[in-house]
């Protein structure tokens, strides 16, 4: 055996968890400002396909990443226009963004199906995105909890009317939060296409966007908690595949359910906790002050 079982599980958890972590952080920023984006799956898909396409055209995976982040921002700004400026229902608009993401990413990625792209270079066994994942979470924590901008962001997420009264501009701050969140979501998608699989395939996120939304709840809207959260979920997938590879005497059908069972368990155990830290204005639109 070339690597020990535990090392194999840990490596795979980190690899599977990286895209989840970026996506979770992206969703978290938006939710801190009071916006639920159920379309995260769509944002990730657009990031994955644009990143893949850009890397294929330019031959540079880092340019691909940049393009993926900007495309994620663009997708989220579109969503922002609908829910912030047009004040549409966030849940409905989010689902629309998801379907829009499915279609748009398929359209963008179509000419690049089967293309061979340069993957992200590795340093000491992992690509740059893996190394930057945890620092990004720490950085985001600092921004949210230790800067004036972060204070305004949280104020808008708790009570946009009060924030407005104290001189903040809720709509502008929400757009900013969605832009940053879209960038991170797009990067999360691109990690799948540019590092993990080196392929683009329609719908390749396969529900990871929704797991990331659940992870925000698990992390209690705290970027630092998102790190172990993403590792645990990445690990659930990695562990079951490693167990199969080892020939564990369990049905593969049962093992394939593990990540979803875990999601449900976590929602059950976190659910009964009444001391919820969810932003108070989460999902509520700001209609201005008369």
């Amino acid at each position, binding site marked *: *055996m070339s690597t020990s079982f535990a090392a194999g599980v840990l490596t795979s958890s980190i690899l599977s968890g990286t895209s989840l972590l970026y996506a979770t952080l992206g969703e978290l920023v938006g939710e801190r400002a009071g916006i639920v984006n159920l379309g995260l799956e769509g944002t990730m898909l657009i990031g994955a396909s644009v990143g893949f396409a850009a890397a294929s055209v330019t031959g540079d995976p880092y340019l691909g990443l940049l393009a993926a982040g900007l495309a994620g921002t663009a997708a989220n700004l579109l969503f922002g226009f609908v829910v912030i400026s047009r004040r549409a229902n966030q849940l409905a608009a989010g689902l629309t963004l998801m379907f829009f993401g499915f279609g748009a990413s398929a359209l963008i990625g179509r000419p690049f199906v089967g293309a061979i792209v340069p993957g992200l270079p590795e340093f000491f066994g992992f690509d740059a995105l893996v190394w930057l994942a945890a620092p990004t979470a720490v950085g985001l924590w600092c921004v949210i909890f230790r800067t004036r901008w972060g204070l305004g962001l949280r104020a808008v997420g708790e009570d946009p009317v009060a924030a407005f009264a104290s001189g903040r501009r809720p709509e502008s701050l929400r757009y900013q939060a969605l832009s940053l969140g879209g960038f991170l979501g797009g990067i999360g998608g691109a990690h799948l296409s540019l590092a993990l699989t080196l392929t683009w395939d329609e719908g390749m996120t396969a529900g990871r966007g929704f797991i990331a939304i659940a992870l925000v709840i698990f992390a209690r809207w705290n970027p630092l908690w998102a790190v172990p959260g993403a590792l645990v979920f990445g690990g659930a997938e990695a562990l079951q595949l490693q167990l199969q*590879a080892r020939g564990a005497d369990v049905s593969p059908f049962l093992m394939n359910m593990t990540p979803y069972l875990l999601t449900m368990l976590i929602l059950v155990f976190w659910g009964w906790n009444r001391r919820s830290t969810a932003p108070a204005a989460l999902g509520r639109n700001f209609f201005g002050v008369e």
Partner: protein
Amino acid sequence: MRLRLLIPLLMPLWLLLPGALPLAAQTKLTVGAIYVGSVHDYGYNEAMHDGLMAMKKAIPGVTLLEAENVPETAESTRIMEGMIQHGAKLIFATSFGHQQFAFDLAKQHPDVDFEHAGGWMQMPNFGNFFGATQAAWYPMGVAAGKMTKSNILGFVAGVPIGYVVGNINAFAMGARSVNPKAEVHVVVTGGWSDKAKEAAAANALIDQGADVVTMHVDSPATVIQTAEHRGVYSIGFQSIAAKALAPKFWITGLGFTWGPFMTETAKSVMAGGFKPAMVREGLGQMMAVAPFGPAVPAATRTLVTAAAEKVEKGYNPFTGPVTDNTGVVRIKDGESWGGDKMGSFDWYVEGVIGKPK
């Protein structure tokens, strides 16, 4: 918003779309083909597309209408209906789940002939075809058994249905025929196309010591690229085009070669003598062994080619006694499992590590 105004403005565009398809009347035969994925997947769909392109090349004047990413839903009916309206007289419904929709459409259009890949339904204008893949995996096993140093062979399987289990079994039997210490470790992803999970599954197998990996999912691209990236040998399946993804560590692969069958079928439709049948052909007809990669020594090439010839001439690896991986004799001495039994495997042969259910 004045968005509502946009809808009537867009309507004419919608009506113009069908006009973009070529007119059928000028050609001898129009053939329609629907694919469940992209024809550039280095896999199942690419092999189907290649077969139809070979048909088109072989018969001058054939028009080919193709639609990619056709879901296995009623959407496929609408797309095939559209092809018939544009003159298609022969339809290839290439994914397993297209069967019922194509069959229902065939009832409504007795003047259009249908061929479905992998199913069982038949009518005077509806036949089906597929490769006899199981025995063809035997020489792949021989190649893997000779190339491995760790004696651990990794197999990424989408869904362990009987045919897939049969492929894995023949692969393991081929490997153990040249290397009795070889073990096949199976990881099931639970779907035919989940790239991130396929990459993770290949990584898991490699982490557990596999130094040759192969797969049965729609597109072999992810597993082969992951193996190449980790410096591990790979064996392809579905389309031999996958060789391009692994310039260093490619061993060989199995690909479908549908061209001759599709050409014959098109010719029979043009001659008015379409004969539906349940066609299942293996190596030499509907399947081919891919060229070897640079790392494969000459002696191994000879062995693999000899095994492939043996299978082509009718060798059936599922000839008793065959024992499953729990020690139970499943095929008794003197018995053998033919083509009709290939979908019934719910057990792995000796040497396979894993559970099929």
